[in-house]
């Protein structure tokens, strides 16, 4: 229950009780724990920059905190947060154009220990994903990182299902094509 206070000029302020504040804080912290990692990955693959990805996630959660009472169904939390993040990303582009990153110069962080061949293939895949057009990259990230169904991706991106299917198909085909080309080049050099 909210306690209603009247100010000196008679305007009513709805003030949450201390119990509501605690439960709101707990709810927020649960969301942060559950989704911050996936949201960070989504942001990184969207903007190709770790520092911007970090800022985007911080901004997203701050907006989520302000609007937490609008989230009625916890099952929709992930797509709700992704919608906020996409809007925030678009807003940043409105504010200022970022410096364009040359995909070829992006250093891929080698966090998992892999064999040299695997590592090379993963780096090539990393570059190939970043080089994908964002229209193809975004549904692929939502499907692979977010675990969204194609119908959910369509809803989140405001596209029809056939368009989403086509984009997912082309994204994978382009990646496969690029990888094959790169591997051919590598084997051509080594022979």
């Amino acid at each position, binding site marked *: 229950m909210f306690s209603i206070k009247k100010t000196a000029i008679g305007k009513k302020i709805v003030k949450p009780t201390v119990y509501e504040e605690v439960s709101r804080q707990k709810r927020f912290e649960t969301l942060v724990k559950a989704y911050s990692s996936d949201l960070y*990955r989504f942001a990184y693959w969207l903007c190709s920059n770790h520092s911007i990805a970090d800022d985007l996630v911080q901004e997203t959660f701050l907006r989520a905190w302000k609007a937490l009472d609008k989230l009625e169904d916890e099952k929709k939390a992930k797509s709700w947060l992704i919608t906020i993040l996409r809007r925030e990303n678009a807003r940043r582009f409105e504010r200022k154009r970022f410096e364009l990153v040359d995909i070829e110069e992006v250093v891929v962080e080698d966090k998992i220990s892999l064999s040299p061949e695997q590592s090379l293939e993963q780096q090539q895949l990393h570059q190939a*994903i970043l080089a994908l057009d964002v229209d193809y990259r975004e549904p692929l990230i939502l499907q692979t990182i977010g675990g969204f169904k194609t119908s959910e991706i369509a809803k989140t991106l405001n596209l029809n299902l056939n368009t989403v*299917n086509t984009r997912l198909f082309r994204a994978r085909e382009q990646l496969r094509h690029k990888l094959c080309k790169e591997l051919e080049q590598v084997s051509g050099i080594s022979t």
Partner: protein
Amino acid sequence: MDDLEFRKKAVIDPNSQDPKFLKKTRQSQNNRRFVEQQQSFNQQIQNTLKLSTPENLSDRIILNQQLFQHKHHTTQKRHHQWRNWLVGSVAASLILAFSLNLIFPGTQNSALLARQVVEHVKNDTHALNVQMSVPKSRIDTMLASYGGKLNGPIGQVSFLGHCIVGGHTGVHMVLQTSNGVVTVLLLPSQRISHEFMLNDKQLSGIIYPSKKGSIAVASEQIEAIEKTRQNIDQHLNWII
């Protein structure tokens, strides 16, 4: 499902659980192999997309939210002060009392708060009975939500939770020390002017002013109290 539709589906969603797709997959060795190839490629994509994230990301998000909330409350308070001054219908003495209340919002009677702390600790027997080792990351997150930070170990924490004492929220911790079980309550919204001993038949302890609000340390073993207090004072920092 015809062959073309099947192959397209295998590329678009190789892990699909659609019964028609699964049935078609089982129909021939070729189909099975094709789906396996797509699933393996998908796994490769997934491994690449799953970057490791900054270690303290969630703590920083919560701290950022707390900083925002703190700033927001301060602005709101200033705004209210200004509006109240404009109305000017309140007598000078009332305005003074009101202002003092704004400057020291949580100033409480130490004795009253001490009684509330004792009651809270005695009523919350669950906290004392929980036997788990709370990870440091959870303590960091909880403290960050109140604007606090640990710069060193405080010992084994067997219970950690939010608590409400005297209508204000705080952190309730139970520590397993070499001298016995100790309850620590961090009460960042409860300012007191001076320290006060907790006097009860079962519990001993102290509540004392901190940089932010107050801290209560209580235990059935009197010798555990002072050491825990020193430990907390040494390692707890209030950032906001």
